[in-house]
Structure formats: C-alpha cells, structure tokens
C-alpha cells in the first residue's frame, strides 16, 4: 500500500469493523495483491459481524471517527452460520435510530466482502473515504465530547470582559 | 501533603518494586516523586490511602508497609476490579497517584508493655503487617508477639518471605494455617480454619491486645473464640473496609450507620463494632 501522493485538505478517519473470516481476509488479500486503497481506514477485527455491537459504532464516532465501515461475510457464508443474518437486522434497526437522532447515514457503510474479494474491499473503502472526505469532518459526536452541563462550565463567563462604558450606559438607562 | 488545597489531588509516586504475593495478589512498593513529599510523608499504622491508576480511577487500600520504614510505602491488593486490574498492568517505573494517609490508626503507644496477638485471614494480612513490622521495629516495647495467619490454601498465603522471617526469628510466635484441603505436601503449618487454630494456639489474654483482620465470616467466628480466651471487647482491635471513593467523609458510601469508616475508622475496637448498627 503506497501512500497516495495527492494531498488533501482533509484526511477523514475511517474505522472499519470487520469479521475475521471474510472481510479481514479480503482486506489481507487486497494487501498481498498490492492493491491500492486509502490509508485512512483503521481496521478492527472481530470474530463475526454478529459480535459488532452498535455501541462500538457509537464509540468510534465519539472517539473521532468521521466514517465507520462494518463489513463481514456474505449472507449464507457466516462462519457461525447466522451471525451476519442477525447483524443485518440489528444494523437495519440501528441505522433507523441514528437517522432519527440526526446522524447522517452517509458516514456509516455496511458491506459484505468475502475473503476472495480484495477488489471489492478496495472499492468499498475508497468510496466511503472519498464520500466522507467531501462531507468533511463529522462534528456532532466530537463536539458533544467537549460539552458540559452549565454548572461544570461555570468558569467560562469569568473570561468575559468587564466593559465599563457599556456597563455605565446600562446603569444610566435604568432607574 | 499537597501544596494545593484540592483534597482530591494525588501525589505522584513511582513503582519501585513489584512482588507477586500470590497468583492474584500483588504488592507495589511506591516512592514519591516529589522530594519534599518523599521526606515529609508520614503515617500511622492502620491508615489507608487512595491509589490511582490514571485512566481507570482510584482504589482504597491500607498502607501495608510499616510507618517506621521511611522513604517508601507499600500497598497490597488483589486484582478484582477495574482499578486493581489496571494497577496490575503497571510495571516498575510507572506512575501511580497516592492520596492520603486517611483515617485513624492503631494506638500503638497504648500497646506498649503489653503482649500482642495478630489474627489475620487471607488478603487481610497487609493491614496488620504494617502494625507487625511497626511493633517488631520497636520490639523491646512489647512483650510476647503471636501471629495467627491463615488462608484458603498454601498458595494464597501472602508475604511468604516475611512469614518465613517471622518464623525464624526467636521473638515472634507464628502460627500459620490453611483451610482443610489447601495444604501442599511440604506445608509446615497447621491445617484448619483460623478460629479453630487460634483456639488451639490459645494465646494468653492477660495484658494482651488482639488485632484481628479478615473476611466477615472469619471475624464472626473469631470474636467468640477471643471471648472464650478471655479477651475483653476493648482489647480487640480490627480494621474495617468498605467501598470508598473520596476517603475524606464526603461521598457518603462507606458509612456503617452513622459511622464513617473513612473518617471514624478504619480501626475500631470490637466494642465499637458491636455498638455499630446491625448493618455490619
């Protein structure tokens, strides 16, 4: 995987949750076949898509991911028979939830990539990376990380400047 | 200890040595990084501290080393929770935070001229070990010293080297024991539960103070034995542990009735414990 020479203003962070049996092997194949794909993706390996809890996806966004990819075996190919079938329903529901609370689903991609589909892995990763790149950084969860309840945050107003002419004007205008 | 008035701010300490007492119990020897703190830190036997593993939080253990040995402190813990497991992952040279010392202590001066019986079970030896060494370092101030210590199995005995040392020195009577079924082929101690072994050992109660620490079940069966041996409730000391967060009487979880273990304890006499509400 050679680094792309082209420079971008924004390099999105993409987290990929993949199953070890298919997609991880597929990504591996892409690597050993010396296919090129964006280096923005960080791959996390799981036994099965059925093990990929929606909370992991949330956590990824919270910790700074701009896009998340979840990928596993094609339906019928699950090493554990039905893990990906269950995952499919769960992720369909989770997408609806995320959308309802105002998360742009374009940042979340699901795919089936088998151990033989190194090319598909490259396509999926490239497409998601480029799409998220045009969308820019994901601000929502990151901003939330730094938000506080007002009482915690009470220090902020101390930085306000005491503007005496304005204050005097205010005094004068009353009473 | 801290220069700041922030009571939650820990002093930083470096792990100087690690000793694995049992497969899941570990001792950390800690040296304060700040020179002033290192020189001025003092505590009394029985006090505890809040140890922090950064990123995981704080945990409460007694200070297991003797106050008479300056320059370092030791803590001993079993890894059972988030903080203790993370402390276990630390290596020599890593940094931990230490807040303390907190709580009351054993009134060692009042024990001068008396005999002492230490009774401990399992992981509860560290809170007494600090007193044991404190007393051994001032050996001539006390009469007979007896240590009855037991654990579930031979492997669960902590401070094995020190047990050996105590066994070998002539001025201490060490009775060690393991629960039935817990002894290896070469075990040189007794087999039986601590209360039973204590009754067999039958230390005299005359002018003697008993210091007991162990799991609630052990305490429950040990107190009647001590009573039979003639110890009055005022001459039996124990140290309690409850879940704590602040260590300074604010967070509201360590109380047993109106007694805050962190402030009014952790050291109590049996009379005080019995007077506490039935919650204990």
């Amino acid at each position: 995987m050679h680094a792309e020479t082209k420079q971008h203003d924004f390099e999105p962070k993409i987290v990929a949750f993949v199953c070890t049996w298919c997609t991880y092997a597929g990504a591996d194949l892409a690597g050993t076949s010396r296919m090129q794909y964006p280096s923005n993706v960080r791959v996390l390996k799981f036994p099965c898509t059925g093990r990929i809890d929606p909370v992991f996806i949330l956590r990824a966004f919270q910790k700074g991911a701009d896009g998340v990819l979840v990928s596993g075996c094609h339906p019928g190919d699950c090493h554990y028979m039905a893990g990906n079938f269950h995952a499919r329903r769960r992720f369909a529901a989770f997408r609806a939830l995320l959308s309802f609370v105002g998360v742009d689903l374009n940042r979340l991609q699901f795919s089936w990539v088998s151990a033989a589909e190194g090319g598909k892995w490259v396509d999926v990763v490239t497409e998601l990376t480029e799409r998220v790149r045009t969308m820019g950084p994901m601000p929502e969860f990151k901003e939330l990380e730094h938000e506080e309840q007002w009482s915690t945050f009470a220090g902020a107003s101390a930085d306000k400047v005491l503007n005496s002419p304005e204050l005097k004007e205010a005094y004068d205008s009353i009473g | 200890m801290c220069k700041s008035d922030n009571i939650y701010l820990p002093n930083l300490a470096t792990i100087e040595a690690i000793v694995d007492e049992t497969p899941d119990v570990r001792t950390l020897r800690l040296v304060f990084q700040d020179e002033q703190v290192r020189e001025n830190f003092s505590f009394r036997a029985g006090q505890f501290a809040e140890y922090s593993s950064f990123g995981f939080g704080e945990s409460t253990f007694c200070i297991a080393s003797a106050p008479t040995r300056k320059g370092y402190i030791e803590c001993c813990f079993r890894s059972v929770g988030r903080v203790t497991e993370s402390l276990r992952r630390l290596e020599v040279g890593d940094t931990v935070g230490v807040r303390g010392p907190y709580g009351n202590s054993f009134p060692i001066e009042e024990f001068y001229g008396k005999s002492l019986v230490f009774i401990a079970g399992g992981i509860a030896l560290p809170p007494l070990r600090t007193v044991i060494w404190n007393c051994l370092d001032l050996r001539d101030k006390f009469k007979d010293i007896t240590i009855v210590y037991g654990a579930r199995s031979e492997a669960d005995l902590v401070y094995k080297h020190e047990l050996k040392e105590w066994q070998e020195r002539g001025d201490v009577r060490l009775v060690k024991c393991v629960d039935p079924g817990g002894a290896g082929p070469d075990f040189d101690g007794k087999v039986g539960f601590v209360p039973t072994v204590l009754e067999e050992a039958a230390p005299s109660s005359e002018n003697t103070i008993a210091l007991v620490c162990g799991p609630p079940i052990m305490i429950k069966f040990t107190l009647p034995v001590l009573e039979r041996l003639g110890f009055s409730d005022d001459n039996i000391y124990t140290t309690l542990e409850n879940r704590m967060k602040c260590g300074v009487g604010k967070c509201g979880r360590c109380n047993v009735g109106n007694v805050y273990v962190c402030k009014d304890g952790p050291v109590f006499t049996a009379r005080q414990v019995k007077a506490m509400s039935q919650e204990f």
Partner: protein
Amino acid sequence: MPQIITEQNLRNLIDLLVKEAKLVVGPKLSGSVVLYEPLAAGSDLTLDALPRRSSKELFFPICEDILSYKRENGAMKVTDVDRSKFPETVLIGAPPCDAGSPAILDAVMSWDYNDEFYLERRRKSTIVGIACTKGDDACFCRAVGLAPDAEGGSDLFLTPLKDGSYACKAVTDKGQALVAAHQNLFADGAGTEPVPFVDQAVEKLDLVKIKKWLEEHFEDPLWEKIADICVGCGACAFICPACHCFDINDEGSTDDGVRRKHWDACGFAKFTNHASGHNPRDVQNKRYRNRIMHKFKYYDDKFGKTLCTGCGRCIRACPVGIDIAEILETINGKED
C-alpha cells in the same frame, strides 16, 4: 429600613449583573421544564414553578473535573483545576427550600477536609432567596423546620407583595453589598401586603422523636413495607437539594484524561458494592433505609442538622410514588 424592588427592576438587576460579568443563575424555562440555569437576561427569570432540579448544582455541579493528567515525555503530570476561574455568581429566585440547602451542606463539605470546589463556589456566590407563595401538596418545609418565608441561607431575601413588587431584606453583608451596589433599583418603604403562603399538608413533625425512633428501629417491618416497591433509581437523590453523595471516575486514556466527580445516589444497587462482590446494602430496602437514616439521623448525629429541606421534589418525582413526608408522618405518629 425596609426596601422594595419592582418586578421590572428585579429583571433589570439581572440584566445589570449579567453585564457586570457575573454568572446569574435562576429558574428558567428549559425545553418543557423549569431548571436553574444561567440567565442571559432578566426576561429569562421564571418564578411560577419550582425548578425540577435544586439549586445545589450551582455549588455542587452534576459533574465536574477535579484534576487532569497528561503524560509528557514519559512523565505523568497532574494538573489541578484553576478554581480562581470560578465566576462570581448570583443565584436569584431560590425559595427557602433551595436557598437553605447550602447552609446544611457547608457542614459536610468543610468538616476536617475542605472540598474547595464547593467552598470556592460558595464564597463567590450571593443568594437572593424568595418567599415561596406557590407550593403544592408535596411541600413539607414547615415540617422540617423551614418555612415558606425562612431567610436562612439567603443573603438577600425577597417577599412577593400583592402589587407584584418584592419587599427586600438584606440578611447578610453580601446581600447588603448587592443592594448597595445597585441602590437605584431599590426604593424605600414597606410596600403593600405580602402574597399569602399556601397551606401545607404536613405541617409539623417532631424531628427529635423521629430521630429517636430511627435510632431504635434499624430493623423494622416498615422498611420492607415502604421500600420493597422502590425500583432503585436515583431520581430522588439527584433532584434533592441536600443529597451530596458523589462518585469519582477517570475518563480518558492512560496518558491523557481527567478525573471527574459526579453525582451518585445511595439507591443504586452498585453504590456500596465491594469489588469482592460483597454488598453491605444488598437489597433495596436497606438502601432506602440508609437514605432516610442519613437524612434524619446520621447527618444530625454528625453535624446537628437535618439533611432535608422539605421541598417535596422526591415525592413528585418518585416513579413509584414513595412519599417521604408520609413516611415521616407515619414514624411521627408511632407510639413506641
């Protein structure tokens, strides 16, 4: 000399204080609930309902950093929070059951060890209390020794008058200073008649008797009877003006993060759970008993005060309708 302030001038006062760069906190409509929140202008002040959460969060925030840590060049560095940055604060519009709570909490926050986070905020705040003319059947402040017109805890105390203005009384020097600095908003005079108070269903309790009963009835069928239905949430504790239990947790990585102190509640099953799995308060009624005992016995034992202001919030909020006033009345009415 008695003074009065018109409602408009009370709002003007808020505007001025905001301009003086003070943090002005008062009841404000936030979404569909009234909460104590920073007021951006006098017009934000909402005095028709008791805020859902008490004003304790002004001094004891729901969650606050107590330190931060960072590994720099391999060495861990711990940084204290700059408490001098805490703003000068004015709390406006707190009824006696809220204004009175810091006076109770000061004791636990400053016995032996001082919680400077709380105390610094206390030092920097002025409390403008207001006599309570609302109240409902959950209120029982009179029963715990307060009253709708109790000035305790307030620096400046306002009494709503029938013509819509407020009679003012400077209770402390801080209150005096607040009036003095904005003298042109206040007028001399006693004003019209005050707005009458609402009657309370639970008027008077014998707290000494209750404490004595609690002392003698650590084990009592009452605890199972009232607390078996408790579902173990923290609603009562979190909205209580006097509950002060907290938890301390680290958030962040092992190299960079903060240590935070945040509200905790004795009703949670894990509150006292030891790492070993042993839990001294293993069932819900023991946890509920601790709540009552702490408020009406333990706190009194330690600090000579009752840890309750009778605001009634826990009664209104309890998901299963546990009524602390009813429990106190029951105990109060017991013969033995």
